[in-house]
């Protein structure tokens, strides 16, 4: 009897500990983000207040209004950065996916000499740190007049994303049974038609997840962007964030607002992609 009670108590307390641990972990993960959002809504006076004010007393969207209503003294050209980030990310993603689909399909469906070496080679290009690549790229682009252009950065991001999209899409195509395309061909389709009618729709969700992942990689990239852009013609949000942090008198509230603007697309896409991303990474890697 005593033994039973002991185990029962132990089980209950472990359960409680588990819940506490989980809550703590979630809190740690969410805290920085929450704090930034809060700060973007409070007047600078409150942020700087000593002793610190914990519960926001004044809440306003002023920071955001300032941001989007115009440049002006001390204002951040958010709209330009946002526009640049959007154009560059979307375009580079589209191209990277197209190339990735072709490459991923090649690895998934065909056997050819040196296949694993090619695969490894493609993957290895990804290991080059952004900043290391930026040096020669800067030099080459300077020669070609590609500095501070959308095109230059787009090309760089395509190259950055292709290895990963190939890996993921390869994995997703492998999950589609080969027989289906063959059945379609027997039914009268050409290989091209069979691909678009059968294989592509089935790998669709996975390809969409790869697209989202590539988009986020481009959206968040800093090292290359910082060197290959010069003005609001092509500066992206991450570069913008750094530029304004470096200023001597820091408009913390404005910075936080900029940070929030950067985050929103990323978070919404996270929610959509979470299930597929993991399955793509693990199936492509474990079953090989």
């Amino acid at each position, binding site marked *: *009897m005593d*033994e*039973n*009670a002991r*185990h*029962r108590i132990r*089980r209950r307390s472990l359960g409680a500990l588990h819940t506490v641990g989980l809550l703590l972990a979630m809190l740690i993960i969410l805290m920085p983000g929450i704090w930034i959002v809060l700060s973007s809504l409070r007047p600078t006076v409150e942020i700087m207040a000593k002793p610190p004010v914990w519960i926001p007393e004044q809440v306003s969207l002023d920071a955001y209004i300032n941001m989007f209503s115009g440049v002006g003294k001390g204002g951040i050209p958010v709209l330009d950065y946002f526009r640049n980030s959007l154009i560059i990310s979307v375009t580079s993603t589209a191209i990277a996916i197209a190339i990735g689909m072709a490459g991923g399909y090649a690895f998934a469906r065909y056997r050819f000499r040196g296949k694993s070496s090619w695969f490894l080679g493609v993957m290895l290009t990804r290991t080059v740190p952004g900043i290391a690549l930026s040096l020669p790229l800067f030099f080459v682009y300077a020669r070609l007049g590609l500095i501070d252009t959308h095109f230059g950065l787009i090309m760089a991001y395509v190259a950055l994303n292709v290895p990963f999209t190939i890996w993921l899409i390869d994995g997703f195509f492998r999950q589609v049974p080969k027989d289906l395309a063959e059945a379609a061909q027997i039914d009268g389709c050409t290989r091209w038609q069979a691909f678009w009618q059968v294989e592509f729709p089935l790998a669709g969700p996975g390809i969409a997840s790869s697209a989202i992942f590539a988009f986020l990689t481009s959206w968040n990239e800093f090292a290359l962007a910082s060197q290959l852009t010069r003005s609001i013609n092509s500066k992206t949000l991450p570069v913008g964030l750094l530029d304004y942090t470096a200023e001597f008198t820091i408009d913390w509230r404005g910075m936080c607002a900029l940070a929030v603007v950067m985050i929103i697309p990323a978070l919404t896409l996270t929610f959509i992609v979470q299930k597929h991303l993991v399955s793509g990474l693990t199936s492509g890697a474990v079953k090989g």
Partner: protein
Amino acid sequence: MATVSLKKLTKTYGSQAVVHGIDLEVADREFIALVGPSGCGKSTTLRMIAGLEEISAGAIEIGGRVVNDLPPRSRNISMVFQSYALYPHMTVRENMGFSLKIAGRPKEEMERRVAEASTILGLDHLLERRPSQLSGGQRQRVAMGRAIVRDPDVFLFDEPLSNLDAKLRTQMRTEIKKLHAKVNSTVIYVTHDQVEAMTLADRIVIMRDGHIEQVGTPDEVFKRPRTRFVAGFIGSPPMNLNEASVEDGQLTFASGARLPLPAQFKPNVEAGRKVVFGLRPDDIYPTGHGLHSGEATEVHEIELPVTVTEPLGNETLVFAEFDRRDWVSRMLNPKPLRAGDRLGFSLDLSQAHLFDAATGKSLRA
């Protein structure tokens, strides 16, 4: 003493009760089978005994000790899982010796026990293999070896033969029976196959929808089923069951067909009662071709049209139409028959069963 007691054992998921306060006493060294259709709660009950599921209410005692909240490792039990649950990254030897290793037993003892179990189960030549290199039957034997190495109070089997093909199943059934004779411990065995239960168990527990329908020896549940459900569940081919009502000392069926009320039920059953009439295929036979031909006491002769025959070699299952249903009958010394033939059948009414149509309970005295 490895007795097992279940006292008002209950399991609920949210507001849904899956096991409704069952009581059971298992004697030391007894082989008990829990049988029933899918979802009847037999696996859940077993897992509660093992400690893999939490108990919602009631108590479980093993060897007289209450074990309600104890984790599996403190209950001194062994379990053989439906999918064998072998450790894939360990050899057969390591699989079998694992529990002893965890318990910190000395190496010589480990080796001795593993060798013993391996010999009993014929695994000696497989000891260094990994589970992925074994066949289904071999894996099952390793799982059993793992269970017997520890010499626990109680063995639990969770549908161990379900994943094997029919022929292997029959083989392994015999092996398990021999094993029980040798090891002689208390066994609680869950299966949905009533043949397994009948051939292996000392006593059978038939469960349905979280309740116990009947507990008894194979002979008892076969000859004296207490409910309509048990009657239809035990026995292969299953008992023929038809609904009828009692009128003027006779049974009137829906189609209008009539049979005399069997003598043993006359005192218990009043006129107008709605009942279910049951007769096993052994107790219906083309006249002269039955098991008890010549010895039966209360035989009623009736002519029925034959619908289908299933020749099995030494006997034929003859399907004949009665009350718009096909009755299964066993024909020994079979003669060729054609569909549509009208044949004289003998019904051994002394072996008939009668159940209340509403409650399903047996109306036997």
